[in-house]
């Protein structure tokens, strides 16, 4: 227990001292996972909206595939992105392997299903009468769709939080495709692995505290959104 408390005290000191090694890695984590979630939004919201509103044969299968995407093992995604980007791979010419671009690519693949799945559920939960009424009042198809998404906006923000929480805490994909290079591709999770292996527990715990704080903030946000939903106002038509 002494080991843990000592390390915890040192970790807090490290965080407060603004150690550049620590903060550079934290910044790189936020950049990579933030970038991946942003790209995930661009792909996931249209896909989720479409799957949530359209009716076509095979939709059930498509929804199941998106939901399966939630359980993609990061290390397997890392493996495929690694092969794709390695020198002999199909995209080797990009020279992305062991760069933040490779890490964003891998985490995008992990984040997009989160955004798509939550968007899908969110647009499905908005009463369809809303759009019909908007259309009846003279809104164009696009205006009606935007209104629909506006109603689902809280859930969409939860999608961002869930996707971000998932990718910032994964280690398998970023370790494989990023390579944990100091000052370039070392992020919070890969740094925790390395510092633990080096026996530098205080530094590892400092990173762990930051990661826990981020995960807590993301989940607190999701919880708030979920609790807010039952109080939503009644549908426009009765």
């Amino acid at each position, binding site marked *: 227990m002494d080991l843990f408390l000592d390390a915890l005290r040192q970790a807090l000191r490290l965080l407060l001292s603004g150690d550049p090694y620590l903060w550079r890695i934290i910044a790189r984590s936020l950049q990579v996972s933030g970038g991946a979630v942003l790209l995930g939004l661009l792909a996931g919201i249209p896909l989720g909206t479409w799957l949530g509103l359209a009716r076509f044969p095979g939709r059930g299968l498509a929804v199941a595939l998106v939901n399966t995407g939630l359980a993609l093992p990061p290390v397997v995604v890392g493996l495929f992105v690694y092969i794709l980007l390695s020198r002999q791979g199909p995209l080797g010419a990009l020279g992305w392997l062991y760069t933040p671009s490779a890490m964003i690519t891998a985490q995008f693949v992990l984040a997009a299903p989160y955004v798509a799945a939550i968007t899908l559920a969110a647009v499905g939960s908005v009463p369809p009468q809303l759009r019909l009424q908007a259309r009846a009042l003279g809104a164009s198809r696009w205006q009606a769709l935007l209104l629909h998404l506006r109603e689902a906006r809280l859930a969409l923000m939860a999608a961002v939080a869930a996707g971000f929480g998932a990718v910032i805490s994964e280690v398998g994909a970023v370790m494989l495709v990023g390579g944990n*290079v100091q000052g*370039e591709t070392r992020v919070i999770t890969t740094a925790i692995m390395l510092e633990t*292996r080096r*026996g530098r527990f205080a530094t590892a715990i400092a990173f762990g505290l930051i990661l826990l704080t981020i995960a807590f903030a993301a989940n607190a946000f999701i919880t708030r959104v979920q609790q807010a939903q039952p109080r939503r106002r009644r549908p426009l038509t009765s």
Partner: protein
Amino acid sequence: MIAVGSGEALRLAERGDADAVLAHSPRAEEEFMAAGHGESRRPVMFNDFVIVGPEADGAAIRGLSDAAAALARIAAAGAPFISRGDDSGTHARERLLWGAAGIDPAGSWYLEAGQGMGAALMMASEKQAYTLSDRGTYLSLCDRLELSVLVEGDPALRNQYSVIVVRGAANADGARAFAAWITSPAAQQLIGEFGLERFGRPLFIPNAERR
């Protein structure tokens, strides 16, 4: 039985999480013994480190017999170099060689991978960079690497492995039995033959002191 870098192995042992350690980081081992963490330390076998790099060899180090001089050329050329960066025995040796070259490596050409030897070699191959590797790991991966051995044979590249029985080990009898076995004639013969068939040469030369 767990496989980790020598630095991590000795730290595990220091905390009582390991009973016996097979390490190849002489300086760290001597410190470990001096601090009273070890009950005994005996040599087991050796092999050597090699400096590997791209066939094109932009820093022109091929065939040099002085490892430190080769590193100095790599630094002067600013050619990419992958460091283990993980306090392993190989990383310790690399820092020793940089010290001998009088260079404190830093800059965009010097990449600290913070990973194991296999991952560092894969990265060196992908980036067509230089790195320091133990010969065994290089040989076991060389089919998949676009890297050649460029510098070898410098006495400063000798890689001695020792077995340490940890003082106050939870399973002291088991630890002593392991150390006795790995230094026994039977195990030493196994070590001397290991890799002979696949690589045409043994990966390690046994050198336990006969008692």
